[in-house]
C-alpha cells in the first residue's frame, strides 16, 4: 500500500501556482526551483563557490527520476545528481547540475 501524506492533494496545485516547468523522462510537471551560490568545497585556506540548483517536486511525480537522468528546467538542460525525501516524504528535493 503506498504511503499517504497529510494534505497530499494540496501539494501539486500549490506547485502549479508558483512552480516552473520541469521535464524528467516522459513527464512534465511544475516544481519549485531554487538557485543558490554556496561554498561547495572548503580546504585549508580557501573554498570554491558553486551554483546549486535544487528542485522541489511532489514525491512520485516523475517515475523516471534517478541519479544521472536528464532534467529540463524551463528549457535548460540539467543532470539529476541526487534525490532526497523531505520532512514527511510528501515532497522530494532534487539536486541538479547544469550539463
Amino acid at each position, binding site marked *: 500500500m503506498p504511503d499517504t501524506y497529510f494534505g497530499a492533494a494540496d501539494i501539486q496545485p500549490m506547485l502549479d501556482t508558483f512552480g516552473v516547468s520541469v521535464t524528467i523522462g516522459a513527464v512534465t510537471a511544475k516544481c519549485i526551483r531554487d538557485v543558490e551560490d554556496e561554498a561547495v568545497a572548503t580546504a585549508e585556506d*580557501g573554498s570554491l563557490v558553486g551554483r546549486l540548483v535544487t528542485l522541489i517536486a511532489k514525491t512520485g511525480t516523475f517515475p523516471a527520476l534517478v541519479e544521472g537522468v536528464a532534467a529540463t528546467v524551463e528549457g535548460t538542460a540539467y543532470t539529476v545528481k541526487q534525490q532526497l525525501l523531505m520532512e514527511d516524504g510528501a515532497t522530494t528535493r532534487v539536486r541538479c547540475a547544469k550539463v
Partner: protein
Amino acid sequence: MPTEAKENLILDALLLRAQAVTGGATYNTNPATKAIGLPRDAAVISSGQAIYLQYVRTSLLRLPSGPSHDYEAIFHAWCVGNTDREALNVKDDLLRAVRAGEAALHAVATHGFRDGDCVIPDPETIAKIGKAVRVQEFIGAYQLTA
C-alpha cells in the same frame, strides 16, 4: 626592480607546468581553465575541467645561523573534473606535467621541490554541483638572503 617573492615565482612556474596539460597523446584531460587563484564566481566553477593554483603558507625551515634563512612554501592545486574519475585524472596529469618540467621548478625552489598529499575537500561536490574536486599539495623550499 628587485626579484619578486619566491612564492610568486613558484606559482608562476607551476602555472606554466599546468598549461602543459592539453590532452592529446600525453594527457588524459584538457582543462579549459588553468589559473592562479580561486574563482569567486560560481559560474566559473560550473564550466568544465579546471586547475586553480593557490598559495597557502610559508614556514621557516631552520633557525638561522647566518645571514641566510631557509623557507618552505606550501601551494595547493585545486583539480576540478566532471566526475570523481576525471578529477583524479586532472590531478595525475598535473603531477606528470610537473615531473616533465621539474627543472623549471627547481630553478626557483632552489632548496627542493616536491608534491605532498592529495585530499578531497568535500566528497559531496559531485552531488551538489556535478563537479568533483581534488586538492594536490606542492612544497617548494628556498633560501633568502638580505
